[in-house]
């Protein structure tokens, strides 16, 4: 019963927040967080800037399971197929993680309407995706994920496997048609990398920090992505890409903080 009451209250807060948002133009004042996370304002200021114009948006759709079956690998898909503006930047974070930031994606020559990447979760938390439009305003989608926790401080399966170095840097991938009838290309790629968070014993941080997608033919950059400690081990990336000259193939560049550059080509 207590749970049901809580859900009803939460829904009311949502409606109030929505009403408030639609009745006022975006200002520097922050909307209330329907999930009442203690980190809401702090993380908004940290990742979007102190003066960011922020509003909630149900067109920023975060698809995660409601609970973390494996705290080291929680599936996340950010679906922006209904987002009504141009997408300049997408920033995701996990409110209560020690390092909340998951990734920052900047589409360049390609339009990206879907992006997926698994994350770690240290305890039950709200997960956010903030999208910057062409006017500079931020549109935020939020979900809550239950977790028994410990995802950031669990030792990586890679590190406990003595053969991990053999597969380090291995890249698997494929190109598909995007799900849901969108035109363009869905790129799915997985990289074998321990992505050590630096929070386990005295294993130092060792993770992929940047990803770039380029056109093979002219090296034009399609998109770039910066990654942080919330990203899971052996990361699997999915992007729905729409860009010109799709027949030319895609070059994937990954750099970690250990100075490794992992380069691979997909398509023609």
């Amino acid at each position, binding site marked *: 019963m207590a749970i049901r009451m809580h859900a009803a209250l939460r829904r009311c807060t949502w409606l109030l927040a929505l009403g408030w948002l639609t009745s006022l133009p975006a200002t520097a004042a922050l909307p209330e967080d329907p999930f009442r996370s203690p980190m809401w304002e702090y993380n908004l200021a940290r990742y979007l800037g102190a003066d960011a114009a922020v509003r909630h948006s149900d067109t920023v759709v975060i*698809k*995660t*399971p409601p*609970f973390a*079956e*494996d705290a080291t*690998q929680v*599936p*996340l*898909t950010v679906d922006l197929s209904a987002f009504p503006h141009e997408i300049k930047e997408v920033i995701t974070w996990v409110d209560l993680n020690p390092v909340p930031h998951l990734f920052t994606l900047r589409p360049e020559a390609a339009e990206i309407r*879907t992006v*997926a990447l*698994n994350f770690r979760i240290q305890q039950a938390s709200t997960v956010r995706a903030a999208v910057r439009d062409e006017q500079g305003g931020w549109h935020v989608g939020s979900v809550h994920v239950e977790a*028994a926790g410990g995802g950031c401080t669990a030792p990586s399966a890679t590190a406990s496997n003595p053969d991990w*170095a*053999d*597969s*380090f*840097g*291995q*890249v*698997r*991938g*494929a*190109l*598909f*048609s*995007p*799900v849901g009838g969108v035109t363009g290309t*869905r790129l*799915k*790629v*997985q990289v*074998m990398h321990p992505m050590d968070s630096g929070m386990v014993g005295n294993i130092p941080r060792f993770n992929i920090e940047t990803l770039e997608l380029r056109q093979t033919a002219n090296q034009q950059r399609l998109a770039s992505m910066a990654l942080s400690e919330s990203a899971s081990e052996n990361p*699997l990336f*999915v992007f729905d890409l729409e860009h010109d000259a799709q027949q030319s193939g895609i070059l994937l560049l990954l750099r970690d903080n250990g100075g490794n550059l*992992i*380069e*691979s*080509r*997909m398509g023609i």
Partner: protein
Amino acid sequence: MNMRHLLLLLGSLLLGSGPGMADAYRYHLEPLEIAEGVWVFEGVTEDFSRANGGNIVNTAFLITEEGVIVFDTGPSRRYGEQMREAIETVTALPITHVFLSHHHPDHVFGNQAFDAEILHALEGTIRLLAEQGDDFADNLYRTLGDWMRGTEVVLPTQVVTPGRVTIGGRAIELLAMSGHSGADLVLFDHSSGVLLAADMVFYQRAPTTPHSPGIDVWREELRELEALDFRYLVPGHGPVVSDRAPFAQMQDYLAWLDDTLRSSAAAGMTASEVMVLPIPPRFDEIAVARHELMRSVVHLYGAYELEAMALISEGG
């Protein structure tokens, strides 16, 4: 109880949970005799919760000429102790054997109520419980709170040799399988025709897949079990039956899961997209199907995705 569990328990007490009366934390276990000398305690077809205290599992006992054979000990020390009390209302004979079907917590966390010297399990089960038992306990303390009070992992001391054995006049066959958890013991009592299938068979409740070596392995072993000449089937979760309906349902569900994961991977879908795919209406009667589909995607989908991708750079 170790310090970790004590802290978890204190946390759950401070949050306030569960019944607070003298009659609190009773599972009200009612033994049901399904065949001559074969008794079952039937749990609910739900997920672990503070409302059910973890009584989501079927356990059983068989009465022989010399004593009692227990099959699985339930989700907590309290369950094991209350199971033992319930057995004593049926017979004064001593408990001579406890067989543990596999290492999952809802089947082995009542072990403390029994003499460790008579706990029997497959070698793989003992190893898996030693590796994963403490993590299971942490999770269950969080989920069930005081229901778990005093519960600790007790490893079986007797390694089961698969095959036929006579115990107190009962002709018992012990089958070693792996499809559900990596090491699954099935007990077939030829004397009564009762097949204690444990979690190799779920009925009206979606199967769980966290340690399955693969759906194909599981389905093949299900065909072997179905071929046995049994009169009653006791699934690990779900109602006892006298027909083969659970096998048809398991095969149907697992085949659908396998096909869905394979075709989704071939289409390039993300894990979170697969989790919300429609579940066919014919599975409406299967409890917690959506919840288990989400879990199964986490357990299994990665392997299907790997198959659907090409090796682009060798690495190393």
